[in-house]
């Protein structure tokens, strides 16, 4: 027997980490685990963080909240060593540290659980857990037995009852997440950073994650938790740190954490100034959808309509099938069945060309991969959708048209760019989004669809995009948008269609004063089976939504 005997499967004592982590457990004023002092970070065109402070104690769950673009993700990336701050300092257990690489952060015991999980699907759990620090036998060969034993112990700690030999590719998202957490525990992580960990989990999986987080807390592991879901924060956090436009917006202690205070912390400004609601003169139904079934949710037919001049939002949790509706209408992922009518005429949409011909346009969710071509010039991007329609008889580029449109859009949307030959990748996020929008405005679409129209862009650009939506609606464009930002959905929409697991569970109208966060959340979570993180929200008996008069009248 050359190989060392695998260690017995003795369960790790739960308080092991805690004992190691706090040198003076009973000292009244021990040094915090982590102190972030006046950290700033600039990106081209944006100040992502402006002198931000953060303190985390061992065994504490700190929730960092803020809207998109508030700087949460940048702060987390700095802590994980993915990005380095331009100024400010970071103290780890009272000592100045340079977290200039993910390695440096991991060595100190800081682990980031990514929103996009970083696991190799083709390897089994044990191999993933040991990746980069594989155990070796005498001949330098892999000591699989030792790695599996190690994996088994740590899997138990995160409540994952699976063989270490299971292929990671066969796991669900929730299980993969637990494997990531296990991986962090294996290197004795003292601080776990979780970026929207429940965004794609079911209610039950979420509950299990909470259990694991509480368990880790008792073991002295500190957790910094980013979430959009306020109910969840209320459930878990010992302390809330609010960020707004890259600055500290204030903190809440455990007993102060309630919904109202958190919203105030996040928004912190006169919301009405951001949204310029005007009364829209509604025209005929521009888009009517009957019995539409998307590939993601076959067997769940959707019925709705959007009138000319109306702004309709699709609300719901991530994974409720909102984006899929837009993709089906635009022919990217054509619907399984159902009928689509544009301006009263039945259209068949099998690919984006059909949709464009029918008068539809889509500003997609992923700006950098789908919305624009980063390496191409502003002019070429703005022209791209309309080239075919405006080409000359010989298939020549309509250069004059393209140039005119680029100039017009730069002026109309106030795109900040040195000139129209600048590659779009060098513009700020907000200006990139305006280019993505401008590309469609060149075609005067009848129905404009926007998927997360203001994700990750600054407040100023947001406001301009809201204004533009209003302006387009006033001119009779029908607008259908998807937003995960509650405030935005409530502030912009004339009508919200709330989705849950592929179904439209209700319709809320601004005119009927129905646009409240509670009503949206009740519908978004499916009325029955309200997730456990909203225990104190009453389950109101909502009448079945009145059938849309628009759908009926046409």
């Amino acid at each position, binding site marked *: 027997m050359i190989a060392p005997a695998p260690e017995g499967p003795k369960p790790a004592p739960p308080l092991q980490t805690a004992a190691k982590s706090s040198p003076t457990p009973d000292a009244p004023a021990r040094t915090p685990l982590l102190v972030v002092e006046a950290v*700033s970070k*600039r990106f*081209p065109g944006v*100040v992502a963080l*402006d*002198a931000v402070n953060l303190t985390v104690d061992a065994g504490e769950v700190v929730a960092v909240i803020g809207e998109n673009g508030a700087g949460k993700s940048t702060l987390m990336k700095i802590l994980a060593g993915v990005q380095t701050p*331009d*100024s400010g300092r970071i103290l780890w257990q009272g000592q100045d540290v340079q977290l200039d690489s993910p390695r440096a952060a991991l060595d100190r015991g800081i682990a980031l659980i990514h929103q996009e999980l970083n696991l190799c699907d083709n390897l089994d759990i044990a191999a993933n857990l040991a990746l980069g620090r594989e155990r070796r036998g005498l001949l330098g060969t892999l000591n699989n037995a030792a790695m599996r034993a190690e994996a088994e112990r740590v899997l138990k700690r995160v409540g994952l009852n699976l063989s270490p030999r299971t292929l990671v590719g066969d796991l669900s998202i929730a299980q993969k997440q637990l494997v990531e957490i296990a991986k962090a525990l294996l290197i004795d992580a003292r601080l776990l950073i979780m970026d929207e960990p429940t965004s794609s989990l079911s209610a039950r999986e979420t509950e299990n994650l909470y259990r694991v987080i509480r368990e880790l807390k008792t073991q002295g592991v500190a957790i910094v938790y980013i979430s959009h879901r306020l109910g969840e924060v209320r459930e878990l956090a010992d302390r809330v740190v609010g960020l707004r436009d890259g600055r500290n917006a204030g903190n809440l202690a455990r007993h102060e954490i309630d919904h109202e205070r958190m919203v105030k912390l996040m928004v912190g400004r006169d919301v009405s100034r951001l949204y310029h609601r005007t009364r829209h003169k509604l025209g005929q139904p521009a888009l009517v959808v009957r019995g539409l079934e998307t590939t993601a949710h076959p067997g769940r037919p959707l019925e709705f309509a959007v009138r000319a001049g109306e702004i309709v939002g699709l609300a719901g949790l991530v994974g409720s099938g909102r984006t899929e509706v837009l993709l089906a209408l*635009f022919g*990217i992922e054509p619907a399984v069945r159902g009928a689509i009518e544009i301006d009263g005429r039945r259209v068949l949409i099998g*690919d*984006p*060309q059909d*949709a*464009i011909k029918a008068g539809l346009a*889509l500003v*997609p969710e992923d700006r950098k*991969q*789908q*919305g*624009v*071509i*980063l*390496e*191409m010039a502003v002019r*070429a991007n703005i*022209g*791209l*959708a309309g*080239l*075919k329609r405006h*080409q000359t008889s*010989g*298939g*020549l*580029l*309509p250069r004059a048209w393209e140039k005119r449109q680029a100039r017009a859009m730069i002026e109309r949307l106030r795109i900040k760019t040195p000139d129209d030959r600048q590659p779009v990748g*060098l513009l700020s996020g907000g200006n990139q989004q305006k280019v993505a929008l401008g*590309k469609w405005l060149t075609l005067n679409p009848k129905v404009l669809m926007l998927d997360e129209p203001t994700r990750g862009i600054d407040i100023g650009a947001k406001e301009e995009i809201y204004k533009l939506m209003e302006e387009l609606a006033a001119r009779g464009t029908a607008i259908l948008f998807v937003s995960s930002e509650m405030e935005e959905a409530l502030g912009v929409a004339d009508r919200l269609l709330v989705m849950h697991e592929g179904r439209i569970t209700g319709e809320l109208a601004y005119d009927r004063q129905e646009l409240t966060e509670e009503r949206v959340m009740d519908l978004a979570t499916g009325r029955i089976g309200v997730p456990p993180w909203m225990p104190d929200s009453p389950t109101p008996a909502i009448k079945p939504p009145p059938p849309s008069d628009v759908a009926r009248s046409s």
Partner: protein
Amino acid sequence: MTKILGILLALVLVTVATAWNTESFLTPYNVKNLLNWIGLFGVISLGAAFVIIGGGIDLSIGSVVGLSACLLPWLLVKQGLSPWVGIPLVLAACAAIGLLHGVLITFVKLQPFVVTLCGLLCYRGLARWFTDDKEMGFGQGFTGLRDLVKSSVNLPIGGTVYYIPTTFLLMVALALAAAFLLNLTVAGRHLKAVGRNEQAARYSGVITPRVVIFSYVICSTAAGLGGMLFALDLNSVQPAGFGNFYELYAIAAAVIGGCSLRGGEGSVLGVVAGVAIIRLLFNSINLMGFPSQLEFAVIGLVILAGVLADTALLKLAAWNRRRQERLRAARDGHP
């Protein structure tokens, strides 16, 4: 733009250095020969550039060159077809090959590398099979056609008469057509968009499969045309080996000429300059008396140096941009 200037500068440097060091370089015979090779390889490299700009790769070019170079004499000599039928037939067969590649890549969603690697093997085998591995040629026949390919235009410069071969002129004409297609037509713009970011192009209503298939058809047809020109020029084709490695010359020329293998980037002028540099290097290695065994090593190093210089320039530009950004920020009074 700076990239093209760099390539042209390199071209001039190699030309001057070779002309300075050897007497035979500027003789009409050598110039004609060199231009002939630039023309022949230029035709296939232009085709390769389309695929590369569209974000793909074609490894089968050499085998398609070999196949068409065998097919033409086989059809004309062995089957007795007229050139009016034979030549279009070969071109159509090669276009069909490109169509097959394109369809397998877009609709069956196979990787371009794999599809065209299989093509490389298949067409070579096919050529060896129907020729029975025997040398193919036109013998003493079809002199009109062969003379046409081998003809040239006289160009007197300072008392010496230079010959500009028809193959070179044909390549120039095709290059002009390619430049027109790439820069002035909607199809060309769509090809660049698909090469840069296929998803974004699709979301903008570009019919991406059509664009990709189009690029492979152009590439294989150009290879087929090149193969026929080679066959008429050389009048002797070995089915087992003719055209081997030509895909790599074509890809190398495109890369030297500024095409990125990530797609979306490249200019016709650059590709022509890239072909010229490669043929020039072969020529000067020959004339300057380097051991000819070293020629591959020399060319490999030159390509590597070119790509390294390109990367260094990109880094420099990015660094410069960041500096500007910082300066602007400091001026605007941000921290």
